[in-house]
């Protein structure tokens, strides 16, 4: 069954979209990330114009993250104070990102920039996570629990603040910088930034793993909500019809994903996520390097 998308102005198969939403929802439920890094390239692939894919994606992440956040609030695993500090940086970053996106669109290089962002960030984070979880799996086999360094350069900077839920007393400067970076990425790549936020919170800020996912979701909702509204106002690229269909698939997929995720070990999940991230990154890198079959591309001017 074909469905016509009013903003994208293309006709796509309803079940393809539902399936796509479901698949990404499944992975997002399993790993606790928004799944935007997968969804955006997949939307490009089925013929949604890049600008619409990025703008609409932000809106869809709000839904899946909100659903996840509510579950975490019930378990009291959200550090609201940390979330608010991250958020203050995130909103600034998001505004910068939308302007950057507009500028790149006018330049005609938005596709390249988004792909480069993906390759660099996915490659780096996927690689780091892969080796870290490999080490963790080896360590658990050896029967040792790896000790994590709790204090590094981040904790010695000025403007310190106490975060009770995370059990931390650290400077707000690195937190705000992380927030800004994730905000820019969210706007330019159309992702929530979970796959960057999660490792940054664990490895740089030293937050306990159990509050990381909920806190990251809390601030991602606000950043992506702001991004989504800015895309709607500045670029008119949010396709409500597309978002709604993706949501339905995503919500159903996330249900199954969470159940699969609960049965797996943390390191196993992390290494699977790392492999997934690396595969996406390699695929995009290959597209940049291999000779394309068609050298010309069209984009309409409104």
């Amino acid at each position: 069954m074909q469905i016509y998308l009013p903003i994208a102005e293309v006709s796509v198969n309803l079940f393809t979209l539902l399936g796509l939403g479901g698949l990404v929802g499944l992975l997002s439920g399993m790993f606790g990330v928004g799944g935007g890094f997968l969804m955006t390239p997949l939307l490009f692939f089925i013929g949604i114009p890049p600008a619409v894919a990025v703008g609409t994606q932000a809106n869809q992440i709000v839904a899946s993250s909100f659903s996840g956040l509510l579950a975490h609030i019930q378990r009291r695993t959200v550090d609201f104070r940390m979330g608010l500090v991250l958020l203050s940086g995130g909103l600034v970053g998001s505004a910068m990102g939308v302007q950057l996106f507009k500028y790149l669109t006018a330049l005609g290089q938005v596709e390249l920039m988004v792909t480069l962002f993906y390759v660099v960030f996915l490659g780096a984070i996927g690689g780091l996570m892969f080796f870290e979880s490999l080490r963790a799996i080896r360590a658990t086999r050896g029967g040792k629990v790896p000790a994590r360094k709790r204090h590094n350069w981040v904790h010695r900077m000025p403007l310190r603040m106490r975060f009770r839920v995370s059990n931390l007393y650290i400077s707000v400067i690195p937190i705000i910088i992380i927030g800004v970076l994730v905000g820019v990425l969210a706007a330019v790549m159309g992702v929530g930034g979970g796959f960057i936020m999660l490792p940054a919170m664990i490895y740089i800020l030293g937050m306990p793993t159990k509050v990381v996912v909920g806190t990251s979701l809390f601030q991602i909702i606000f950043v992506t909500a702001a991004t989504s509204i800015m895309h709607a106002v500045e670029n008119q690229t949010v396709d409500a019809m597309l978002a709604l269909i993706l949501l339905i698939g995503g919500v159903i997929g996330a249900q199954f994903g969470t159940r699969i995720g609960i049965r797996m070990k943390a390191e196993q999940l992390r290494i699977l996520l790392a492999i997934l991230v690396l595969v996406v990154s390699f695929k995009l890198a290959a597209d940049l390097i291999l000779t394309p079959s068609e050298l010309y591309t069209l984009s309409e001017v409104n």
Partner: protein
Amino acid sequence: MRAVLVLLMMLATPSIGEEIVASMNQSQVSITADFQGSEIFIFGAVRRDEPLPDDASPLQVIIMVTGPVRTVIVRKKERRWGIWVNTESVQVDAAPSHYTIAATGPLDEILSATDQLRYNIGLDRLVRTVGEVNDTNDVPAFNEAVVRLRQRAGLYSEQDGLVDLQQETLFSTAIALPADLVEGDYTVRILLARDRTAIGVVDSVIAVRKAGLERWIYTMAHEQPLLYGILALLVALFAGWSASEIFRLFRR
């Protein structure tokens, strides 16, 4: 919906007075959410004041449907620093979003190049670039790229022999409009030719409009962007909340 549109137009012809009387099964196409594409049936007859002379060469009919013209930016990729980057670009001013041409025979055999040019017929003449804003010298290659890419996407097509002509008088064709339609006015041009010379032309319009929910979403996104953004957000939050509630019900 199925309003019948009758068109009449006369064009002075050198020898015999021939006039096109044509109609389509619909003059309006509504794009709704479940729009699957549409088939336009175009038919008509040639009216003559006097019988055809015996030595008259066969009549030919060309029918074309042209979508609204939009400006398109064509970009070319080149390898820079080892990766493929968009480099040169051309702004193509006149590229219809859709183009289908059907005729009683191969275009070049039934109409002279001069008349093809005069009546704007054929894929080669479809895409034009005006203005000097381009940073490349090879504009024709960019115009050809538009035609090639849109042909591959099924937006442009040339169909020889798809117009059915009965006894030099009655003609008909069915033109398929794909599901990926762009909103706007689509021009239908019917052209009669004899001896590779155009002897009559008639134009009419099919109005393609988004309707219902599609119309509402599109209008709101452009006229009330802030409200639209907020509304889309509320829908997303509501969906997230209902998902979480359903999760809880399942857990019990």
